[in-house]
């Protein structure tokens, strides 16, 4: 298996995340996990994916102005997630990837989020991780590979 970003799949699902709405954080991640159970009925794999999507969703809900989207692409051996928003972007990428660094408002922290570990959690569990950010928005792409498939890794 080449580690390139293939686009040959017709199994693409799109989820919208509303910005500055903290009390529904995790609802899209749950929907994604339930949907993926039909394709990859394996607890450990779905937990890894679910956690990554949960963190991406929390970032969109907490740090964006207008929210964003989560695109789920399903391949035979992996799932690719693309989380996109239109701003305001990360001022300092290096800091944003430092565990414990957070710009989340107190209202998000009171709900148990914004501890500055989200992106690192995704990096830790994903097999592919890419992020770019500017004032115009942030694009986060990650893949979680199904370890059952001997052609991965």
């Amino acid at each position: 298996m080449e580690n390139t970003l293939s686009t040959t799949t017709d199994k693409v699902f799109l989820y919208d995340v509303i910005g500055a709405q903290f009390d529904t954080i995790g609802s899209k991640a749950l929907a994604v996990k339930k949907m993926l159970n039909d394709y990859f009925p394996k607890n450990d794999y779905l937990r890894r994916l679910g956690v990554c999507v949960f963190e991406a969703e929390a970032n969109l809900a907490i740090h964006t102005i207008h929210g964003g989207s989560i695109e789920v692409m399903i391949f035979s051996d992996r799932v690719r997630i693309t989380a996109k928003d239109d701003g305001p972007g990360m001022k300092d990428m290096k800091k944003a990837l430092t565990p414990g660094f957070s710009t989340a408002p107190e209202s998000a922290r009171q709900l148990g989020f914004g501890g500055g570990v989200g992106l690192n959690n995704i990096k830790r569990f994903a097999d592919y991780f890419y992020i770019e950010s500017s004032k115009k928005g942030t694009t986060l792409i990650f893949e979680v590979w199904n370890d059952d498939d001997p052609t991965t890794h």
Partner: protein
Amino acid sequence: MKIDKICEITAAEIIQPIGRKDVDIRYAFAADLMSDTLFIIMRDDEPLLLITGVTNTSVVRTAIILDIPAIMIVRGKQVPEQTIELAKENEILVLRSSNIMFVTCGLLYQAGLEGSPWKIR
């Protein structure tokens, strides 16, 4: 450790009883930061109790994502109806103890519940 035993040890009540009441809990994890809770993902499928002071719906969603069958709310906090409803829909048991988190953890650890194993992948 059975749910009834956990309640007895921590003087807890079951405030959402729909779920796996016969589950045999082996591990526990305590946190008020849900992202920290998401750190325990690499555990095996052994049943785990999540101990927290967070009462909003995100705690239930975290439990569902991690296949956690039961949540223990500490400090006797009131739990919003939406949280109970979401837990009921997804068959996540919700317990409540008036003890603080430290005491709750201490009592359960002393009684033999193990801390959740986790590792950095």
